[in-house]
């Protein structure tokens, strides 16, 4: 047996393994890209950079919603070395106990419930990692951080991190802008690619409606991380990084001076003021009273202290009355009824009805022997007879069928005014108002079991008809425009894009322009002629056209309503004022509207007594 040949076994074994290793190395390192990808998965990490939110400007280019830099006091537990809690508590100004509590709290905040797929039981998983940064104190102002920052270097593991939050130069318009809050679970799930836990998201108003535009585009930074998630280096010298892009500025139709003035006038009152530019549909002011300073709702610290206070306030400052409160419009609705009657041809401008006061009450006034006079004197019986002619046109022998057909026709008219239909605009939470239709009454009374006499209250804006203050203001704009309107909206243009296309659409009502002069004359007379109901709405040297309303309120004092536009020729502003529980429309709503219009048109107030009378008046104690 030749044992020396057995060395070949060794040599072949070595060669065999050498060749296999080389081949395998070639496959892994040169031929197959799989491991390069895997290395990327393991070590590369994308960091997102949040841009500051888009800025809001008013119609004159005044910054009304801005951003301010705040600071989070961050820490990484693993980097903390022998924390001197006593010195630290002195530095940040909270007790030693609170420091320990805060550490525990941060850990607890990152508890997350997960449901087991097999057993269906909830178990709590904690996402806290000692090697990842967490915020010890959140949203410190520049002043607060500057006190801390000086000595912060002595506390290893702690550092400051800037963040951007909202800042409101004017304490006005909270109901328009809305507020931001930390994102909730469902919101997070709606756009997992953009949002992360702790992000702020628009909760109401423009912040919510324009969330997508305002949030901007997040930037990304690709970094190399260690196995514990720490930054090691930039990847590819930052070639793959993208910059964060701030959202475009929004240019609003709001005039912040007018808005602030409106809020001042409505102080200690409940209600709304909505002013619209008739030629564009831009909302000039949208006052909701009572209101709150938007700065109270900036950041989670403020929200924690102020939200419940505001939420529990019996006067409901969060309730955006101009767009969400639906009221019976009262007598201002007579203007609509007059226009429908004229268009339908059931009356002529000279039509006269007796002020019988048999079906509906009225006040004493000279005879309403024309449409214009009926509007000027706001004669209730006049419109009762007039609307009866619209609803009961006598096309059917059955009284009930006739009413149903009449109401269906009337509903179409109402919808053409934007009443009772979904508005296509940029106001979050906007309500449609209520226009009772055939189905509504069939459901209520049964088919063919109701007629005009049943629903007559609607003739004068009572009964089932309800409009939002915004719709009332838009009604004034429609009259000012002789029959058309642009959807009332808040944002003129996004960035430099110019006017938004969707708001350039002219919406025509079913009323021909020729019928408007009669109605306008009535409104002019209501303000400017001796027996008019809205004499308090007069403005020196400017012809105002308006219509008062007094919405009956079964729960208390009547609501004071007024709508108007000015000047009569070439109107620049259309306005509706609604003051809850303030009584007759001409007494409170009309002067407020006139002050607003004067402020907008001339920039000053000529009648300081009128202004003082409004400013001194309180209505809020009624409900308190």
């Amino acid at each position, binding site marked *: *047996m030749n*044992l*020396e040949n*057995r*060395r070949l*076994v*060794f*040599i072949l*074994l*070595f*060669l065999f*393994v*050498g060749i*296999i*290793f*080389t081949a*395998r*190395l*070639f496959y*892994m*390192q*040169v031929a*197959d890209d*799989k*491991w*390069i990808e*895997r*290395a990327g998965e*393991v*070590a590369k990490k994308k960091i997102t950079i949040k841009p500051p939110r888009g800025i809001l400007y008013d119609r004159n280019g005044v910054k009304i919603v801005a951003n301010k830099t705040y600071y989070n006091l961050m820490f990484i537990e693993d980097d903390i070395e022998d924390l001197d809690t006593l010195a630290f508590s002195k530095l940040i100004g909270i007790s030693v106990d609170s420091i320990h509590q805060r550490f525990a709290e941060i850990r607890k905040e990152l508890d997350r419930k997960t449901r087991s797929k097999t057993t269906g039981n909830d178990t709590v998983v904690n996402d806290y990692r000692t090697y990842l940064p967490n915020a010890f104190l959140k949203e410190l102002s520049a002043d607060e951080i500057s006190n801390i920052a000086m000595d912060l270097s002595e506390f290893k593991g702690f550092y400051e991190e800037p963040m951007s939050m909202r800042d409101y130069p004017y304490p006005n318009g909270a109901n328009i802008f809305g507020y931001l809050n930390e994102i909730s679970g469902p919101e997070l799930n709606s756009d997992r690619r953009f949002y992360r836990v702790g992000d702020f998201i628009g909760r109401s108003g423009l912040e919510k409606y324009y969330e997508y535009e305002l949030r901007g585009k997040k930037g990304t930074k690709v970094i*190399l*991380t*260690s*196995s*514990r998630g720490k930054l*090691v280096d930039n990847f590819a010298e930052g070639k793959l990084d993208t910059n964060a892009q701030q959202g475009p500025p929004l240019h609003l139709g709001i005039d912040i001076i007018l808005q602030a003035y409106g809020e001042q006038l409505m102080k200690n009152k409940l209600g709304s003021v909505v002013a619209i530019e008739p030629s564009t549909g831009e909302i000039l002011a949208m006052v909701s009273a009572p209101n709150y300073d938007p700065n109270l709702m900036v950041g989670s610290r403020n929200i924690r202290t102020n939200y419940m206070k505001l939420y529990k306030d019996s006067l409901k400052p969060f309730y955006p009355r101009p767009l969400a409160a639906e009221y019976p419009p009262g007598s201002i609705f007579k203007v609509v009824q007059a226009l429908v009657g004229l268009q339908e041809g059931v009356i002529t401008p000279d039509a006269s009805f007796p002020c019988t006061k048999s079906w509906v009450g009225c006040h004493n006034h000279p005879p309403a022997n024309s449409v214009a006079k009926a509007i000027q004197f706001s004669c209730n019986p006049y419109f009762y007879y007039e609307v009866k002619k619209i609803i009961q046109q006598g096309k059917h022998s059955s009284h009930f069928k006739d009413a149903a057909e009449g109401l269906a026709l009337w509903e179409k008219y109402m919808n053409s005014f934007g009443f009772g239909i979904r508005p296509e605009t940029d106001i979050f939470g906007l309500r449609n108002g209520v226009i009772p239709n055939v189905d509504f009454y069939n459901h209520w009374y049964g088919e063919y079991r109701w007629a005009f006499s049943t629903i007559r209250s609607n003739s004068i804006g009572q009964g089932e008809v309800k409009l939002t203050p915004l719709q009332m203001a838009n009604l004034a704009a429609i009259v000012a425009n002789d029959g058309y309107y642009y959807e009332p909206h808040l944002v003129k243009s996004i960035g430099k894009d110019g006017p938004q296309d969707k708001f350039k659409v002219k919406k025509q009502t079913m009323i021909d322009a020729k019928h408007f002069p009669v109605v306008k004359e009535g409104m002019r007379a209501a303000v400017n002629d001796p027996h008019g109901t809205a004499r308090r709405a007069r403005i020196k040297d400017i012809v105002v056209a308006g219509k008062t309303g007094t919405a009956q309120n079964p729960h208390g004092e009547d609501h004071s309503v007024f709508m108007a536009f000015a000047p009569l020729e070439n109107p620049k502003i259309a306005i509706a004022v609604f003051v809850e529980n303030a009584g007759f429309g001409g007494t409170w709503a009309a002067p407020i509207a006139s002050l607003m219009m004067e402020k907008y048109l001339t920039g000053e107030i000529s009648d300081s007594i009128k202004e003082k009378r409004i400013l001194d008046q309180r209505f809020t104690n009624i409900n308190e």
Partner: protein
Amino acid sequence: MSNFREKTVGWDWLTILIVALLVLMGIVNIYSAAFNPDRPFLFDLKTMYGKQIMWIGIGLFLGIVISLIDAEYIRKLTPAAFVTVVILLIVVLFTEPINGARSWLGIGPFGVQPSEFSKLTTALMLAYVISDNRGKLISKKSLTLALALVIGTMLLILIQNDTGTFLVFTAFFFVMYREGITFDPIILFFSNRVLGLRFKHTLVGIHFIPVLFVVIFLSIITLYFTESRHTFSFLPGYDAPGWMLLLIIITVLFSVSFFINQSFAAQRSKKKMRSAILIVYIVTVGLVGLISYTYLNVLQSHQKDRIDLWLGKIQDQDGKDYNRNRALAAVGSGGFSGVGYKEAILSSPRSQHVPESETDFIFSVYSEEWGFLGSASLVVLFTILLIRIIVIAERQKSRFARVYANSVAMIIFYHFGINVGMNIGIIPVIGIPLPFFSYGGSSMMSFLIMILILLKLDSQRKEVLA
């Protein structure tokens, strides 16, 4: 002294060159793999590279001191060295375990691993025991003694829970195979006494070690491929199962050897070879078939999963396979020419994605930084070194030197094969250092001394030792 000069034919410079190169590359690599930016000085004894250089110094010193001793004395000192290390191996069992293994003997801040040195002393002892016998073949007595020594030491290592070193000890069976160890008696006992056959000797018994190696290799290959499906462009719509392909490949290989035998083999051995080929073919097919059948039809799915996990067919990337997965990603992302020295992304000491990157997974750092060019060169370097040591072994006149040299070759081969194999994902993770590369004093010193003794013995090969 004049006597010494006459008998000395000189040192094997190729081996010295390759080992020096490997040690140098190792230092360069550790400087990157364990780089501490606060202590950039290469010889800083508080860093791993500083310590490693110190170990190399001590190893070289000890090795040179030993190589000043005459080869015959080295042989005579062997039993004492062996017994000392065995005692240390027993002492170590009474220490506190570190990472689940009782292998460290700490003296102050430094510790030694007796198991690392036990490879060296066992290699010497094996050579001592086998060379005791003057005949060409090994006597039954010295064979039994050799087996007892090797298996006894292996048991001590097994109690320590040091799987890697335990595996390395199987290298000695290859060495015994070279010296003519046969397992025939056991095979014959079964075939003749139990089954009543009349064999004088069997191929399996004589070549038991390489046969076992081939069987294990074939089994793993079968397990790996049996379930996979393969499609071919010339057979559209049909995917062949892996086991079928394996059987086809085996059949083709054996047909070719059958044909070669028929055409070229000497007439005398033709018939014998033909039946040998047929028998081996039937056994091979039987083995592949049996393993495939068992894997596909007998094993439960969780048992299959366990095998697949072990083979790396399925990976638990961020769980059980974390280490291997990160090391493979590091090696694989090196590309053709590497990411550059000290530029490693995954395996750098800063990112720490690859655990144990200065010891067991040092190859991944090297491969990531130097790419295919570097890693393939290292494989070639080790292969040349191993073959060179076999060449050295076979030129020895003394059996002591030959057995020792073969042992050294096989020990280095096992370390190289297992370490690189696990770094490139063809062997499961077994903690074992890469010679001259991995950080570690015991390993570095024992390998250096091992090589220096080899060189010393070789330099005195003209002398006929016992």
